């Protein structure tokens, strides 16, 4: 008898609630755009925030509902843009963008710049800037505490043994997390094909810059003159005490830096920031650099 009662009760509960829920589903149905899900499916789902939205889902909603630009996903690049375009039924506007990579504008590792004392605060670059503003001697340079390394969702930026971050150009997706993580704005995104930069942000006058770092730009203008001699005066210009490569036309050549006395103007292959970019480098070196994160 009690078995029948139990079966009846559970049956009534089950059927009752399913009917109730089925009814409620119709009554409270909210229209959602099916394109939102479709767009979200083609996105990389890493939620890096590189597009400016907090998550891939939020970006998908913005694309499908509010007509946001479809080429904002820096991680997926041209491939994802094409797929979103396919989902949304629009043509891809303009040419494919060239792949960007993060460029670290400082070569002041422990050999070149050195440490004035010991920093024992929180191991975070922003915290170091706020509390004591020290790490290495140069007050424009890399602090070497690795906030950019921690910020990278793709394991593409590492600390070298000498305490300067270097970028793995193949893994880098140009999401821009390291750019915002660096409190001294030393990291920028530039096309992967462009080689020559002035890897320094120091505004110190030459005499001081040279004292604090062996690889600082000392504003000698040799690279500017070399560019002018090559009939390309726009390529390298002076910004205060710092030579700057023109990043609007990217016409600077690596040769302009041949006479640079401090190697601040350098091709990417020769700069310390791109150790891993050199394809034929010895393997042990890469492993040693990659392990430095801990």
């Amino acid at each position, binding site marked *: 008898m009690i078995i029948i009662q139990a079966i009846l009760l559970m049956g009534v*509960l089950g059927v009752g609630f399913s009917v109730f829920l089925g009814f409620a589903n119709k009554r*409270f149905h909210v229209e959602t755009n099916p394109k939102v899900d479709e767009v979200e499916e083609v996105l990389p789902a890493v939620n890096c925030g590189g597009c400016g939205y907090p998550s891939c889902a939020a970006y998908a909603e913005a694309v499908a509902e509010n007509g946001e630009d479809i080429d904002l996903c820096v991680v997926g690049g041209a491939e994802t843009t094409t797929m979103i375009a396919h989902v949304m039924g629009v043509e891809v506007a303009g040419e494919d963008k060239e792949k960007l990579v993060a460029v670290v504008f400082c070569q002041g590792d422990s050999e070149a710049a050195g440490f004035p004392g010991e920093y024992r605060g929180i191991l975070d670059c922003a915290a170091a800037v706020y509390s004591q503003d020290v790490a290495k001697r140069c007050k424009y340079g890399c602090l070497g505490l690795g906030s950019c390394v921690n910020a990278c969702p793709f394991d593409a930026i590492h600390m070298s043994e000498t305490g300067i971050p270097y970028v793995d150009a193949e893994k880098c997706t140009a999401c821009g997390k390291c750019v915002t993580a660096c409190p001294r704005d030393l990291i920028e995104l530039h096309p992967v094909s462009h080689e020559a930069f002035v890897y320094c942000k120091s505004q110190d006058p030459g005499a001081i810059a040279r004292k604090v770092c062996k690889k600082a730009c000392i504003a000698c203008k040799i690279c500017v003159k070399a560019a002018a001699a090559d009939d390309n005066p726009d390529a390298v210009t002076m910004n205060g005490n710092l030579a700057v490569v023109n990043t609007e036309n990217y016409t600077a050549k690596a040769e302009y830096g041949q006479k640079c006395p401090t190697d601040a103007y350098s091709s990417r292959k020769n700069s310390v920031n791109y150790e891993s970019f050199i394809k034929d480098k010895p393997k042990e070196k890469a492993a040693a650099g990659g392990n430095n994160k801990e």
Partner: protein
Amino acid sequence: MQIVAVFFVAVLVNNFVLYYFVGICPFIGVSKKVDAATSMGIAVTFVMTITAAVTWLINNLVLIPFGLPFLEYVSYIVVIASLVQFLEMFIKKTFPELYKTLGIFLPLITTNCAILFVALIQAMRSYGFITSIAFGFGAGVGFTLAIVIMAGIREQLEVADIPRPFRGAAITLIVAGVLALAFMGFTGLVSA
């Protein structure tokens, strides 16, 4: 008076997370950021209060009169799961803003042990209807309190220099233990 006592006992003295150690999964899982922890706490409070009311009705109007109290677990699970489903639809339609805050947390807590625990405890202790609701609400507030404190501590831990063997889950569990010890200080505050 008993209602007030039951409420405060559920919040502080017999805190669900730190005294009974139920609902540990969301307590560890969603306590990385204070914002998310607050949303989770509100969602849990919401579901717990309603669960307490509905399961009281099921227990006292159906199970006990028909002599079927052994169906407690099964029927509670069915009722709670359906109810949360319905709530989700209702909120999505009626209060889209609240839905965005609670977000994915609502369906997540449907099968949470803390929710079932509320239902079972109030039946075991034969609370009255209003007392049951006060108990469910208090349990939810207690959960929110615990998870928000935990999230606050974990936000600080992010930048703390923790010895390597303790990093990650280990330090979280240690902090939970210390918090539980601290909450033992409330024992004897209210005798229920």
